[in-house]
């Protein structure tokens, strides 16, 4: 009995490795224990110190602060960092490749980090990524548009989704649209 099951599981892992993508069960978990803690901000799980700053700047572009906090203060980067060792393990490589690519594109063209560029320049770079107009090998074959869409969707999830996943700090986006979350027992629904 056992043999049959072992075999099928091995097959399964083999196939997963071939490209299913969702099954990088080890990568995220392992990096927690490996020696790369030096560049890691205390408390982050997947991103390095540099990556978290970059991600915060991107999140701020996707959801900018106005009268209400933006993506940075709402903890969107924390949402991403949390998901990338959880439900979004399958996107780890995309993030590593994409964030490094973005740093390189900024260094090549502006000799600065993305987060140190002027607001309008940051916006223009992200618009270029969205429409596939960034220079550089990593952006070829549709990776540019693909990675932008990933960032966009994930940042919006971090800002507008439930705080239990690490973003939407203090229910800020619910407050912004006047939604009574969290719902309080005996209070919120008394009108019905």
């Amino acid at each position, binding site marked *: 009995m056992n043999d049959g099951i072992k*075999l099928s*599981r091995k*097959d*399964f892992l083999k196939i997963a490795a071939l490209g299913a993508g969702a099954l990088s069960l080890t990568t995220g978990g392992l990096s927690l224990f490996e020696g790369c803690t030096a560049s890691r901000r205390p408390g982050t799980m997947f991103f390095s110190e540099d990556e978290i700053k970059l991600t915060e700047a991107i999140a701020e572009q996707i*959801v900018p602060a106005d009268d209400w906090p933006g993506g940075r203060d709402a903890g969107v980067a924390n949402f991403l960092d949390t998901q990338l060792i959880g439900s979004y393990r399958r996107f780890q490589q995309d993030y590593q490749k994409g964030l490094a690519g973005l740093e390189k594109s900024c260094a090549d063209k502006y000799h600065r980090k993305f987060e140190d560029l002027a607001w309008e320049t940051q916006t223009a770079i992200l618009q270029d990524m969205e429409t596939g107009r960034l220079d550089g090998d990593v952006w070829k074959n549709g990776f540019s548009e693909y990675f932008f869409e990933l960032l966009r969707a994930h940042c919006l999830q971090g800002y507008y*989704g439930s705080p239990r996943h690490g973003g939407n700090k203090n229910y800020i986006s619910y407050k912004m649209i006047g939604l009574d979350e969290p*719902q309080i027992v005996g209070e919120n629904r008394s009108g019905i």
Partner: protein
Amino acid sequence: MSNRHVNAVIVGAGAGGGVAAKELSEAGLSVVLMERGDWASYDVHNNDELLSQRTTVLGNAFGPDDERYRRVVVNDDGSTKVVVASENDYNNVAACVGSGTVSYGAMAWRFMREDFRMKTTYGHIEGSTLADWPISYEELEHCYEKAEWEIGVAGDAAQNPFAAPRNKPYPMPPFAYNKEAKILESSMRRLGLHPFPIPMLRNSISYNGRAACVRRRSCCGFACPINAKSGTHNTAIPAALSTGNCELRTNCIVNELVTDGNGRITGISYFDKDERKQVQSADIIIISASATETPRLLLNSKSKHYPNGVGNRYDWVGRNLQGHAYTGAFGLFEDDIFDDVGPGATIAVSDFSHHNPGIVGGGILANEFTRLPYFFTGIRPTGFPKWGKSHKEFQRKYFRKNVQVVGPIQEMPFFDSRVQIDPSVKDYWGIPVVRLSGHRHPKDVKGCEFLSSKAEIILKEAGASYTWQSIGGKGLSGGQHQAGTCRMGDDPRTSVADKYGRVHETPNVFVADASLHVTNGGFNPALTIMALGYWVAGHIAAEWQKGNRFT
């Protein structure tokens, strides 16, 4: 240790299978109900939008999981990709006791008479396998009635002049309109349409020992914390278990039908919750694993007698996969409309279900379930920025001032939209997975354009300051409303099962789920699937009591 032989084994405890389990065990048959998922729990999933069954970006709240389940999707250019269970392309319903009926929106539609006679009504449609059902609305009517009374539907059929005739009213009064429905109601009436409250598998008053609905915003895609939403998990399945004749086995993954040396199907084999391979033998085998998993199971059951899989002599298993393109329009208003009275959808018109010039079939139009915050980030006028300052302002300004009117368009069955078995990719248990390919028929796009334009007219008349249409897609259809892959029919060469769901080439194997649908109506399908559960199992029980052992 081997399992005790039973009269019937049912694969899948969803809409069709849950009902079948109840009917057979109440008729005195010994039944084992196999379910790959577990009982769903409200405490685990509560009201988290990103991890629900409607928005599944962080996973399917009610299964299947991303770690063990995958499928292969064939792209337009013939290339393939492997997708995990929470991705849209996987075309999921759910995997838990009750399946989609735990977390559905609970619209409870009867199909119309025309929906069972599409070929007769509209003639041959080039490129489509459009056909009549082998049963009529009139034959199924008492089964709809049973579903409405036993599972529990709230509504008022008298207000819908297009509804097919019925013998009994709904057991519960309809739900009151929310604010957007009130605005739409007068607009629809001014346009000469016939609005009515959507029939719902939800308690408007306390019913069958369960409480009345408190109208939460998190309903469609979520489990009900007070059990006011009715599915097979809190009606038919508990009823089956209380007979003492039915055993429910959760976390059991059925991998194939077992065939003896004479070609008779003697049972099913499965991996139990401890991943041990087991066999359950039975006189009758009923497959209710959904319109994607039922054909997978039949196609994976190859043997000397069934070299192409069980029921597949004429290559019809897995064909004609259809769902519903959702199509409609959005409107922005100057005043607050959001009153937070869930689940949002309350009003519909059936004026466009049939007999529309130049259109085959049609669909209902209804106001949409509550657009929760992340869902709403995807709702912007065509060409509007998808991120940045104005995207955020829009969210703030219009979250409480938008209305969506949508409906499911009746799709033309298409032979090449299909479920196959992927030749190389396997799931966690080593079982070859579903491979999906195909696209919608061009007629469906026409139908979508038609219905969306009507939705926009309704919104304009309701006073929307800005409106835009969203037209259902052309790609492969399936998803939550998947159907049609083991269609019923009188001719074994153009169908998989007979009018009672019995697979033509095997006397004791039945299908009882959405796979049987010949066409999928312009309505959400769950009530019809439940009615088919009563129909198929009712037939089996009646025959059994006459001494027929389906040999």
